């Protein structure tokens, strides 16, 4: 059980990400896509589509989801799960917003919950 160990890392501010857009954060080999929705909620997913590893950060953000730029799978920003008939899940990381500062916890993925 690693669920209670939290490791928040400051990665930037809300203004760094366009509304309904995304930016990437590199962590060694892994790229994390950090999304900002129309309502200024922020979510973080591994930047890899469960279908064929498409870069989700490059997709269109809408209604709590992102549509993958390669073959249009729709992925939930909150859970990383593919929506509709498609099956698969991308790692989703907890995010906190404090005074416009974005913190993410990479040690912990919602996938485990």
């Amino acid at each position: 059980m690693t669920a209670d160990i939290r490791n928040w890392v400051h990665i930037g501010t809300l203004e760094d990400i366009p509304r309904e857009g995304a930016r990437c954060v590199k962590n060694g080999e892994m790229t994390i896509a950090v999304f900002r929705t129309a309502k200024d909620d922020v979510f973080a997913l591994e930047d890899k589509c469960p279908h064929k590893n498409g870069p989700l950060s490059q997709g269109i953000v809408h209604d709590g989801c992102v549509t993958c730029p390669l073959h249009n799978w729709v992925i939930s920003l909150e859970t990383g799960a593919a929506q509709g008939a498609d099956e698969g899940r991308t790692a989703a990381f907890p995010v906190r917003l404090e005074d416009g500062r974005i913190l993410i916890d990479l040690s912990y993925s919602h996938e485990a919950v």
Partner: protein
Amino acid sequence: MTKQKLVIVGNGMAPGRMLENLFEKDRDACEVTIFNAEPRVNYNRLMLSPVLSGEKTYEDIITHGDDWYAEHGVTLHKGARISGIDRQAKTVTSETGITATYDKLVIATGSSPFIIPLPGKDLDGVLTYRDLDDVEKMLDAAKRGGRAVVIGGGLLGLEAAAGLKMQGMDVTVLHLMPTLMERQLDPAAGFLLEAEFKRRGIDVRTKANSHEILGDDAGRVRGIRLDDGTEIEASIIVMAVGIRPSADLARAVGLDVNRGVLVGDDMRTSDPDIFSLGECVEHRGMCYGLVAPLYEMAGVIADNLLGGSSEYTGSVTATKLKVTGVDLYSAGDFSEGDDREEIVLRDASAGVYKRIVLKDNKIVGAVLYGETSDGPWFFDLLKKGTDVSDMRETLIFGQAYQGGAPLDPTAAVAALPDDAEICGCNGVCKGKIVTTIKEKGLTSLDGVRAHTKASNSCGTCTGLVEQLMQVTLGDAYNPAAVTPMCGCTHLGHDDVRRLIKSKELKSIPAVMQELEWTTSGGCAKCRPALNYYLVSDWPDEYADDYQSRFINERVHANIQKDGTYSVVPRMWGGMTSSKELRAIADVVDKFNIPAVKCTGGQRIDMLGVKKEDLPAVWADLGKAGFVSGQAYAKGLRTVKTCVGTDWCRFGTQDSTGLGIKLEKFMWGSWTPAKLKMAVSGCPRNCAEATCKDIGIICVDSGYEIHFAGAAGLDIKGTEVLGLVKTEDEAIEHVAALAQMYREQGHYLERIYKWAKRIGLDEIRRQIMDDEAMRKAYFDRFVFSQKYAQVDPWSERVSGRDKHEFKPMAVLTKEAAE
């Protein structure tokens, strides 16, 4: 057996329906001749209001086009008013001198607008509201602007007022009575309606009695004076104060006529060989002004013409107001009386008002404002005289609340009896729709419309029809076949495009708000489409929403399967030089670009560029004079050329030069789907112009313009648009054609699909034959190019959208742990 000769006077909605019923029963029994005073085919008169408001075009509302008459062997004399009937010889004669003999005659002359005999009623600019000519006159007046005064606050007057307002006029409605639509609405609903019209900036004056129409020296309307002395300036006056059955012809030939042409239950006039139907008749003391009764009459006549003995016994009617954004339904009688009880529901915050009038525990009237989906259910209970004692407590909340837990809407529709009316305009009941869906194997809304006419008129029952399809077909029903733009709206692309223009919607949130998107922020399907429509319609005003663009268009490079990008610079008309090739070679070396390829579009593709490197790659290419090739865009892609007169022994014109000119003139323009062109120097066609979206084949006598070819998922040779003599003409025609497509195409619809939808002849007519139209398209294209021809690469090299190309943070091992 010889066919019986059937002649029809008037070609309105009633006889249109009668013929459909007739042909359905027996294709060959009658030889049909129709005379119509209006110079056109049959159209849906109800839909004149959406044409006036700009939400539909005349073409959209035609119910029986020329091909229908040809296919059914019906002779239609357009613009031929019947002036005489010889009942002995059994002939009719038109003002234009055409005579026809009948065995059976049908009089369907409809009604005429009533004109108040005010001083000034004959001035230029005093209009009525009955047919397409009236609408065209109003649209014409709207172009000149100014104020329109509409006399009459009934259904027609209000639809005219809303339409004229949407066309940009200032509008005043004068209504004699204290509240609007007093014949259909009770005062409370009338008041809500008045408030809504005022909110839209329409000046509504009730208890207003017109006194005199004022004119200027030239005999044109300049205003109106009311009884109380008030004067209102106006450039047009629309009289919508009621209609009168057009019964003069019948009266003149000695048929029994009262207010309208008198008919019995068999729909025969006092002459057994002459039937009559529609708004011109009077049946059991009633004259009708709505279509549902006419359709019932149509069925009765069709049967009786074939020797049947059907009877028409009268109709109860329900009314809807067709003003976008106003939901109003009224049926039956709602006057107050000692023997009546009423149930009222008001929800001021939601703008909802409902009133049901009961007599002896039966519904006799219903008025719904703001939320009308239960209208047909109430109307059904009303017509059947159902005893509602058991559901009195919950009746006003609608069908979903009857019998315990709320039902979902499809369950409510499933529970309707077979004879419940779904489409009030066309009198189509549930049973008919369900059986037709099953018999004909229908799966799309368009199919149901075509075969049953349900939802084919005012369209307000579309939701109900879709729910019925859902119930009937279950999983086999794919609402996508209905072709709304996407799951966020029930509107199709055409509707959305028209509404963006007519309501002047200039941002994505405005579209979603005004057109009642069902999701909060749209989806990956509708957002790019809306973004294109707005870019195309408001080139100078709309601020492009990059977050609504597909990644390729957002970062101006094509994404590859591994998340890298490809870079394709323009090589105008496929020409290049050692300097350009050297610059490309240098860039490839400097950034370690793994692949370089000649594309199918006569230029060079550098594949596998990392996103972070894109601005630097573009900066180097820009120094050598390259701009983006837009190989990623739903926009102008390439113009392929062949070597033409410069080198080729067969070349007839400078195909390379023309291709370069076209590409330099048209690059940067956004189009519904990608637009590829080519110019070949002779019919040997080495640039493959005859499979392009737009292609030109040079010939000795000039330039043959082609369009609507395809060579991708579909393969299709082009169609010829026409031949022009000079290069300048060629450019003008091509740009005008592209603009027409830009304005009308559905997002992602290639030009060949668009052309199929619009019709090749119509496109040729507008671009080749109608010079004024072509010039207007051309000018709009040029205007839009002012804003479109900005090289996106150099913009980004100078810092635009920096955030796109850099990670937000790079975490070190320590930070992450």
